[in-house]
């Protein structure tokens, strides 16, 4: 049995190494791709503004409105604006020679009662959805300010309109654990639930495939002449479980490393751009930095160690629970094609528990969440996610009950699966009805 365990993990080495290394590599690639897109998608735009309404050239609280538009920073790229008096038509032919990328044409309009305004952006290239909407929003705000000013409000009041910065801080009633911000709990909880869901499905099916492979190429008879069916099944489940665990640990280490490197690069990059940018941007950067620091603080306060332990426990429990069922299904099917119908009853509870996760996020201490995190079929996906909202969220008796039920649950499914497995693995050729499977459960030996 021990040999088999070692063995199975070794058997899978080739694909194992590939997936273990490629998955984080893929993640890294994805991340860096996003990063690269961020850097290179943003080219600076220089836009000439032909303003016939003259609202944008007038002097305002903070300089001309056009200067407000100036240096609109959007996704690592900057839009520069320059006002002009030339006629729109002549600009159309000359803007490129002047070194601009486009013309923003603002027709004459009456600010008091215009509801629908139409400006034109004349260019050879497209600005892109993000920049366009940012530009529109900026213009809208300026117009709004202007309209308020026209209505006769004093400048100070207008200036103060933008000075409100609101943050809602949640404070945990329990003093033991600093309550994480809901967003991060949500993120971590979802990541864990999703990972659990993936892992159970992936390794469960790999147990099933392994069993049905052994059955369909008949090697199982040879092996069963040496060991008991239960030993073979358990050996396979444990072997693949260990593979999963190893993979997991490597992933955690790799992603931690990747994250670290990524952050380092990001920090360097931020330093660089901070040096190049002007003062108002510096301020912007500072708030960003502060936000990042706050986030890091929350993450640091998170009971990662405990959560990881709980996660590993539920991973093992959930995996054992479902893997033995998958093994039983594998023993029933043999040939791949008719497996779907039998796999469904096993995957269904996994999928349902995954959807329960969303209900859990709506209300982490609601009834649905409580049951989902206690019942053994859904607890592996739901309990760690619930705990991510803080350990004080879950009464200790619920946690203990959940753990106990999970242990009982997997002992129970393993017992049932062993019975089905023992009979099913040696039956070839005929289709097996669920009724017959039911009968096997009562075979005494």
């Amino acid at each position, binding site marked *: 049995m021990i040999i088999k365990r070692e*063995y199975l993990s070794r058997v899978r080495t080739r694909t194992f190494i590939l997936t273990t290394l490629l998955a984080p590599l893929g993640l890294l690639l994805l991340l860096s791709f996003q990063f690269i897109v961020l850097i290179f998608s943003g080219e600076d735009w220089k836009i000439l503004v032909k303003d016939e309404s003259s609202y944008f050239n007038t002097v305002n609280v903070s300089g001309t409105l056009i200067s407000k538009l100036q240096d609109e920073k959007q996704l690592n790229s900057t839009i520069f604006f320059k006002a002009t008096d030339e006629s729109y038509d002549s600009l159309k032919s000359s803007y490129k020679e002047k070194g601009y990328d486009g013309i923003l044409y603002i027709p004459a309009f009456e600010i008091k009662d215009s509801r629908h305004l139409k400006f034109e952006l004349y260019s050879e290239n497209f600005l892109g959805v993000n920049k366009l909407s940012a530009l529109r929003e900026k213009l809208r705000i300026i117009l709004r300010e202007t309209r308020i000013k026209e209505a006769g409000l004093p400048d100070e009041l207008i200036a103060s309109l933008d000075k409100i910065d609101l943050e809602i801080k949640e404070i945990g009633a329990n003093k033991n654990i600093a309550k994480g911000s809901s967003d991060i709990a949500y993120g971590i909880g979802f990541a864990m639930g999703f990972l659990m869901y993936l892992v159970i499905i992936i390794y469960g099916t790999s147990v099933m495939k392994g069993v049905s492979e052994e059955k369909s190429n*008949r090697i199982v*008879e040879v092996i069963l002449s*040496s060991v008991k069916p239960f030993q073979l099944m358990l050996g396979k489940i444990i072997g693949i479980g260990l593979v999963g665990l190893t993979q997991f640990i490597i992933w955690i280490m790799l992603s931690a490393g990747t994250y670290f490197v990524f952050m380092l690069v990001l920090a360097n990059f931020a330093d660089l751009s901070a040096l190049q940018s002007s003062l108002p941007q510096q301020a912007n950067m500072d708030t960003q930095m502060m936000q990042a620091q706050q986030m890091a603080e929350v993450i640091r306060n998170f009971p990662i160690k405990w959560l990881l332990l709980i996660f590993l426990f539920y991973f093992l429990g959930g995996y054992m629970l479902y893997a033995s069922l998958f093994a039983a299904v594998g023993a029933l099917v043999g040939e791949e094609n008719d497996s779907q119908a039998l796999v469904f009853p096993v995957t269904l509870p996994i999928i349902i528990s995954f959807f329960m996760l969303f209900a859990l996020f709506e209300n982490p201490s609601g009834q649905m969440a409580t049951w989902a995190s206690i019942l053994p079929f859904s607890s592996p996906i739901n309990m760690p996610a619930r705990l991510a909202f803080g350990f004080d969220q879950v009464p200790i008796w619920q946690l203990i009950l959940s753990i106990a039920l999970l242990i009982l649950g997997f002992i129970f499914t393993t017992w049932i699966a062993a019975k089905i497995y023992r009979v099913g693995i*040696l039956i070839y050729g005929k289709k097996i009805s669920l009724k017959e499977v039911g009968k096997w459960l009562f075979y005494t030996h």
Partner: protein
Amino acid sequence: MYILELENVSKRFGDYQALQSMNLGIPPGVIFALLGPNGAGKTTLLRIITHIIAADSGRVLFEGKENVENRIRKIGYMPEERGLYKKMKVGEQLRYLTALKLGNAAEAKKKVIGWLKRLNIEDWYNKPVSELSKGMSQKVQFIATVAHDPQLIILDEPFSGLDPINSQLIEDEIIALRDGGASILFSTHRMEQVEGLCEEIALVNKGRLILNGRTKEIKNRYKKNYFRIGIEGALPVIEETPFLHLEKQSGNELLYRLYGDHTPNELLRHLLDKGVELHSFNEVLPTINEIFIEQVSTRNDE
């Protein structure tokens, strides 16, 4: 002393009685054939012996004891449907299967390498099984069966689906193993194919043991005193005697049956007296197949 003994072994699958109080003994150092049509219960019996499934009742004794560990350790089993892990390499695979039997990885490795050398296929060690031809994987499967030096080698339908060359190969290996001191128990439904090979047989039908014993004895026990006579030239008229009956005549071949206690010499004398020019003379022993059919039909009549 038998190497393997079955006492009143029975097995049911639901409503189907697969084996009915089976008693069987296999002595050491013989080639033993388990014969019977499809569905007679041969595979079930072998699976009980190899401890793949448990009998409902009865005992299985190995070397006179009910010790399962020892039995598993000293039996080598090759199932009817052969299978190996396709993606695994030959060497790894054999080491794994042998180690499961021996419980000792280092020893398993030594034995596997020894066998690969013995069959001159050391260079297959790192080949994946999926690259082997059918005959080649046959050899690998065979090594997997015998690498742990079993005392009893059980082969379920070893000849099914084999071409004559591979059949011969298996046959030679069976004999070599017997000469090495092991007992070989194999099942087959192609009875005529194995008559020359097996020293003892057991006939099984519908889960029951019909006949069991040394092949020669059984044949003698059920012989019907048929004699095939080859002659030259025309056949003179030979009147029937009470003890002699001409069963069949085709060309120059006559088939006589002797009744009573009369010896073949009397038949010959009788023919010679009539001036028959004799060319050949053989006793026709019944084939296992014939004995089987006769036994099954008489039993059904009962």
